[in-house]
């Protein structure tokens, strides 16, 4: 299965050379093994998956079905799935079975995909290493002693290890792109509003966006086409028309103007990562692109702006977990405040509590103007800088993460060091722009990611550039030892 792209798998399914039931069965077996070694799933659902696969086979036998019919997929455990537990990586929701389906999941199901399980993640998507999960840390298939990145670490890990050909993920400050980079896969964060947030458990509502993780840009394009579109259930979803993102993949990139922000190449950037991105840029130049230096002078403020705004929105969003209507409730509460405080104290992990408290602090009387409003003003400055840059160039290219995958536990004692993992990704969320991370090399056997940022709703352009790069490189076809075909 590993050697096939989504398009090829769909073709094999349509010509009946492979049945969806066989394909799903092999994914389920691999998922059990992957889960034991890498802890990348929270739930695996063989009964439901095989029933869906058999239904897909019936459709395919009747000559019906689309390009994704019968294709296995894993969903990040942040997306509500009716009948299957949605925990969001938290003890708070360890007993929660959503009474409805997230729109992104429903759209992918309607397109014929078969869900084999729900992937592990940082608790409530708060983390950059997938270590804050109530269900234990996810491991990186390239080196199990290292993190896969986060918060969508389970999805990136499962695709990287060839357990599933594709997965859904979400990105609030880099949570699709950074794990994609650290696991050597392709991850796209769409424009804010492109994919419905309905049924996607909220962390920071003005930043959260769902998107695909797959092995190539071409596969991600297929998924994005199926996931996207206006949803009346999400007031922030956009009516901008959905394109067929596969259609423009093969366009040439001659004349493409690439901006390189000089502020992103700081001493914190590991030298092999910088070298890999430079080499990738040369490849794009050889294909006819030109590279110009651009300025994003306030980049250094993006992390503090992000953590003030994201924490404020998180403290508000997570107030719904009160132990009353669903989720964890403490034993024997003596009064209503005891019920609230202990249910939340027991249900949330340390990082979630830290962010709720920071958010509560920056929103409290006397601090609101100095922290929250100040951060919102600077959010405008950062967005305007990116907008201005994208008037001069077609896309901006940067490293996705300043380092390759770091050892498990290396940053858990130092929240700020962990936050700095997102230095190259958070501005994109603050501005609401789309960006994709593609594999661009290795350092000491660990994958390196290159980020391509585009203008609003230019996912087709991003995927085109990423695909053209993947036609000229083979980093995205590499598979970790122990997870290769036949292994």
């Amino acid at each position, binding site marked *: 299965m590993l050697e096939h792209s989504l398009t090829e798998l769909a073709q094999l399914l349509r010509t009946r050379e492979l049945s969806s039931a066989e394909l799903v069965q092999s994914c389920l077996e691999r998922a059990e093994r992957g889960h034991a070694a890498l802890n990348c799933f929270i739930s695996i659902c063989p009964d439901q998956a095989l029933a869906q696969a058999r239904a897909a086979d019936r459709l395919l036998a009747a000559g019906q079905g689309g390009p994704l019919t019968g294709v296995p997929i894993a969903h990040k455990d942040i997306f509500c799935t009716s009948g299957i537990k949605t925990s969001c990586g938290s003890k708070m929701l360890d007993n929660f079975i959503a*009474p409805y389906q997230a729109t992104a999941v429903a759209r992918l199901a309607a397109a014929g995909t078969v869900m084999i399980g729900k992937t592990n993640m940082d608790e409530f998507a708060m983390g950059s290493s997938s270590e804050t999960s109530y269900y234990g840390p996810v491991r990186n298939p390239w080196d199990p002693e290292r993190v896969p990145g986060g918060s969508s670490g389970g999805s990136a890990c499962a695709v990287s290890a060839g357990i599933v050909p594709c997965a859904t993920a979400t990105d609030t400050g880099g949570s699709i792109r950074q794990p994609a980079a650290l696991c050597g896969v392709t991850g796209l964060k769409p424009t804010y509003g492109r994919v419905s947030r309905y049924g996607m458990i909220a962390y920071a509502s003005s*930043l959260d966006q769902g998107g695909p993780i797959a092995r190539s840009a071409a596969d991600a394009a297929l998924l994005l086409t199926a996931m996207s579109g206006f949803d009346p259930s999400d007031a922030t979803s956009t009516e901008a028309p959905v394109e067929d993102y596969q259609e423009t993949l093969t366009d040439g990139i001659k004349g493409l103007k690439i901006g390189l922000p000089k502020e992103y190449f700081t001493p914190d950037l590991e030298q092999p990562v910088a070298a890999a991105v430079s080499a990738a840029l040369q490849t794009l130049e050889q294909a006819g692109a030109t590279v110009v230096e651009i300025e994003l002078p306030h980049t250094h403020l993006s992390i503090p702006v992000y953590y003030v705004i994201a924490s404020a929105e998180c403290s508000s969003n997570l107030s719904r977990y009160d132990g009353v209507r669903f989720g964890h409730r403490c034993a024997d509460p*003596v009064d209503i405040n005891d019920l609230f405080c202990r249910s939340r104290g027991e249900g949330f992990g340390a990082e979630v509590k830290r962010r709720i408290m920071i958010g509560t602090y920056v929103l409290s009387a006397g601090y609101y103007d100095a922290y929250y409003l100040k951060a*919102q003003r600077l959010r*405008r400055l950062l967005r305007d800088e990116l907008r201005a840059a994208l008037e001069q160039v077609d896309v901006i290219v940067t490293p996705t993460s300043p380092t390759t995958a770091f050892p498990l536990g290396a940053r858990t004692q130092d929240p700020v060091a962990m936050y700095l993992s997102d230095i190259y990704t958070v501005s994109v969320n603050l501005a609401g722009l789309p960006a994709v991370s593609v594999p661009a090399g290795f350092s000491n056997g660990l994958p390196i990611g290159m980020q391509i940022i585009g203008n609003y709703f230019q996912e087709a352009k991003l995927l085109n550039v990423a695909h053209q790069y993947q036609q000229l490189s083979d980093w995205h076809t590499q598979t970790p030892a122990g997870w290769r075909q036949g292994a």
Partner: protein
Amino acid sequence: MGKYGNVIDCDFPNESERMSLETKQVRNVAWLARLAITEDAEAGYAEDMTTILALAAQLQAVDTAALEPLAHPLELVTPRRADRVLEADRRADFQRHAPLTQDGYYLVPKFVE
């Protein structure tokens, strides 16, 4: 007022003290957020929050008087729809997830004397 109620009166630090949170302020924020945290964890949270707020203090270095706050990246217009009932009553479905219900109500400990 329950056992957490007694900390609501404690003050936030003033401007000059802002950079270093004490356990008293952590207790107050935890109360505002309705989070029970154990006494032996308070010092750790105080230290972490002090570090994070020091990071956030970098924002003060920039003059933002001419910038309007931006709450949302796309500055969307909220779509409107007709005021019609679209969904069926699913109270029983939703209450299945509740820790405690009775006669269609959610049960919580008594809080009005």
